[in-house]
């Protein structure tokens, strides 16, 4: 217990981060360990390369995009709070949370909307708030792999966009994106149990 406390003290700004992300002490500690393990030269921050070193991430079709999402606004350095903030999207939603939440406070990072927003920005490469047909096509190409011809991919992309596209602008806005997924249990599908 004592060792744990001393470790917790080693996490800079632990309290603030916890308040922002809602992570438990233990979880934060664990993440800090991981952060340090990923940080090769003890730079104090992570670079893109650090994340790219993770073997399994390299084979993940969305690996690059997910790494990118750790580096918003063209940053090249990822400090610990930033690291945790991204991961906080995947914290499971607390059941009792929404009722008691102070309306003045910002929506927690792991809310349904924020989870969706995280997914959305993986599609929306040019950050114009819309998934264009082209962006959809690119994602599809990553996901579907080589089995399907380009032609077919395009039809799928077309159809996917059309399906979600309500205002007929040929692109999927965030609103439309959420609508197309309204039947899905996002809170469950975009959460990882260990990130309590």
């Amino acid at each position, binding site marked *: 217990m004592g060792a744990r406390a001393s470790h917790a003290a080693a996490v800079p700004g632990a309290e603030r981060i916890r308040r922002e992300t809602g992570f438990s002490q233990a979880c934060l500690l*664990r*993440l800090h360990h*991981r952060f340090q393990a*990923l940080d090769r030269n003890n730079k104090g921050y992570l670079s893109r390369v650090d*994340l790219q070193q*993770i073997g*399994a*991430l390299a*084979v*993940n*079709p*969305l690996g690059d995009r*997910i790494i990118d999402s*750790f580096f918003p606004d063209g940053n090249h350095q990822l400090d610990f709070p930033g690291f945790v903030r991204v*991961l906080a999207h*995947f914290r*499971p939603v607390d*059941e009792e949370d929404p009722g008691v939440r102070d309306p003045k406070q910002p929506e927690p990072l792991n809310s349904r909307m924020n989870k969706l927003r*995280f*997914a959305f920005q*993986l*599609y929306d490469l040019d950050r114009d708030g819309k998934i*264009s*047909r*082209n962006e959809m*096509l690119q*994602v599809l190409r990553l*996901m*579907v*792999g*080589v*089995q*399907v*011809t*380009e*032609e*077919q991919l*395009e*039809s*799928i992309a*077309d*159809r*996917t966009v*059309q*399906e979600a596209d*309500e205002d*007929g602008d*040929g692109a999927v806005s965030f609103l439309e994106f959420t609508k*197309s*997924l309204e*039947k*899905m249990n996002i809170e*469950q*599908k*975009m*959460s*990882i*149990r*260990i*990130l309590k």
Partner: protein
Amino acid sequence: MLRAALLLFVLPLAGVRAAEEPTPEPGAPGESPSGLALFRWQWHEVEAPYLVALWILVASLAKIVFHLSRKVTSLVPESCLLILLGLVLGGIVLAVAKKAEYQLEPGTFFLFLLPPIVLDSGYFMPSRLFFDNLGAILTYAVVGTLWNAFTTGAALWGLRQAGLVASRVQAGLLDFLLFGSLISAVDPVAVLAVFEEVHVNETLFIIVFGESLLNDAVTVVLYKVCNSFVEMGSTNVRTTDYLKGVASLFVVSLGGAAVGLVFAFLLALTTRFTKRVRIIEPLLVFLLAYAAYLTAEMASLSAILAVTMCGLGCKKYVEANISHKSRTAVKYTMKTLASCAETVIFMLLGISAVDSSKWAWDSGLVLGTLIFILFFRALGVVLQTWVLNQFRLVPLDKIDQVVMSYGGLRGAVAFALVILLDRTKVPAKDYFVATTIVVVFFTVIVQGLTIKPLVKWLKVKRSEHHKPTLNQELHEHTFDHILAAVEDVVGHHGYHYWRDRWEQFDKKYLSQLLMRRSAYRIRDQIWDVYYRLNIRDAISFVDQGGHVLSSTGLTLPSMPSRNSVAETSVTNLLRESGSGACLDLQVIDTVRSGRDREDAAMHHLLSGGLYKPRRRYKASCSRHFISEDAQERQDKEVFQQNMKRRLESFKSTKHNICFTKNKPRPHKAGRKKDGVANAEAINGKPARDLGFQDTAAVILTVESEEEEESNSSETEKEDDEGIIFVARATSEVLQKGKVSGSLELCPSPRVIPPSPTCAEKELPWKSGHGDLAVYVSSETTKIVPVDMQMGWNQSISSLESLASPPCTQDPTLTHLPPRQLNVDEPQALLDLSSDPRPSFAFPPSLAKAGRSRSESSADIPQQQELQPLMGHKDHTHLSPGTANSHWCIHFNRGGRL
């Protein structure tokens, strides 16, 4: 015919028999010494199968009767009704025969009745859901069953010690444990029968049902261990035996699962090579699954586990390998067999209960058992759930626990096991039988009856049925990848990590090995959803029959319902063409080398008004292939013609194939090369030439043959049904003139036709006019010859006009006399004068244009984009993003090909 064959078959047999027996055989005249018997009653020779058939028939008829009244079946589960029917029938038999004749024989039950049900449930098990909840399922199945068995057995023993069970029930602790082990297992048949009608949410269902399937291993082990202990006598049991008992749990469960997986592997591998003998595909599925069951049974492993794993493991590959028809056959046969077996089981349960000779009633035992199994089940569920919830992302709440406790139904497995007991070794067998019957009846009837109201009353989350959408499918995949990636980043190798790993392994090795190459290529979940959506749209479109093309617009059921349904639908119909289930619009985009021209012309001519000549079909009467009969074909043909050939490929993509196969077969390779050559020859974006498109189309159709002829190029004989793709042919005709010049033009993405709707209307469709105009759309550049058959045209235009009412059309765009067009674009490069046929570029996106029109205001820009070809010569005028990449893509593809 069949009779004759039978007779022939019987004759030799009859001859042999006649030699042996004095009685004459009716079928063997001349052999009879005492004259010809006209009639002979041979009941005993057919008795057994006849009775089986009769029972099944009675059960099926009973089912029909039950379902005559919807009210009854909505209140009472079918299993209850069947048990009651069994009771009645058993009573009748008893009254007539004075003894109970029929009953559920354990041998029959385990060897014939159980396997189909388990196979059905394993094969159609939602595997994703199953593995998502595997932890919980295993816990309940293993720990829960052990817990139930031991607590129930021990408690009953305690009851006996306390004197509440009559002393005539001669049973020691081991006997009670044995009884506890057989009565404790939740029964898959009963659970399935009841839960299928209750529609609780999927998670709850899969947990209860998965438990009932997987606990078989535990039940088998417990039962066997206890049974052998009882037979050995409790004094002879040594410590090593207990250890062996524990070890056998692992052997039986893992061994059963391994047997199942081995057979799943074999099955998948076998179906990879059935391309030429499609007809035995369903048979293989059943045979190998059954072989798995029997093998496991033979090695006294868990047979249920084996067949479950077999079904679960093979499904993905088998479904990819076998033909569409085989898939349907497998599905229906499986469902039929399972439902048949289930019906018979419940009915026989009822009948068996009547046989009072096996009964020995002891109220204390019966009541005690009932109370204990309910109580300990509930207690076990609560305890386990509490532990599980520490690890579950989505905890199981109290309501779930209530349903799980209450849904622990006992069934025929327990009954069969108790019948199997040896009375000499287990003196209390009769009491156990009676108790088991009561327990089974109580759980199936009382709990089965009340669970529905209970679920309603507790407001258990029901399963909501929504149709899959592409978005959901795609995003779900995205989420999976995201989660796997996040787990990587966090450095925790959890469930998502391993699933990701497995999927990669599967993709890299297993699928390669077990799926035939063509199937592998097109087997993708996203693609699959897309394909199915298309099929559904197509079917509904056909169902609505062209006549629904009314002003209200046609709606596609697969589209999420919202205001824009009407507009999207047509687009989809046209868009889809690029894919497996394609309307032939896009298959048209052909530009082919000169030789096809004549073919095409002739082809065109012939198909214009003729039904296909009969001689095209081989008269075949093969056992190995199901051939459509002539009538069917003709109907089909007429239908096709009536459907203006538009929806051909929905019905079956065959047509595409036979087109590619029959006609331009020799050119196929050439064409391909052609396409590539063109793509290379013409530099830059223009290289996105029509020839190439053609190639794409051809390949596309071939690939999308996932239905019948996966490897179409090899399955020659499959049939030669279609003179269908006239459209394509004609564009071939066009080709010659075009290849040289027009290609440069077409690719310009800005060159967009006027709304195809309008164009279509204005263009001279009849070939007699000889006018022609070519429009190219930015998105597609599909060239569609104008002179397709009338039917074609009309259907298209009707469709189009539907999508975009004429009133909204831009008059300037609509009134483009095609002839004038030609004049207006001297550089149109389409040397069309060499071609007597008019042509027309028909972008698949045209409906989009139409749609936006009909949708009114929002789409003015898009409307403006639609311009006659000649309006834009300049290639620099590229619309950003989409168009650009689009061309590039095509180009790349050309290179690849």
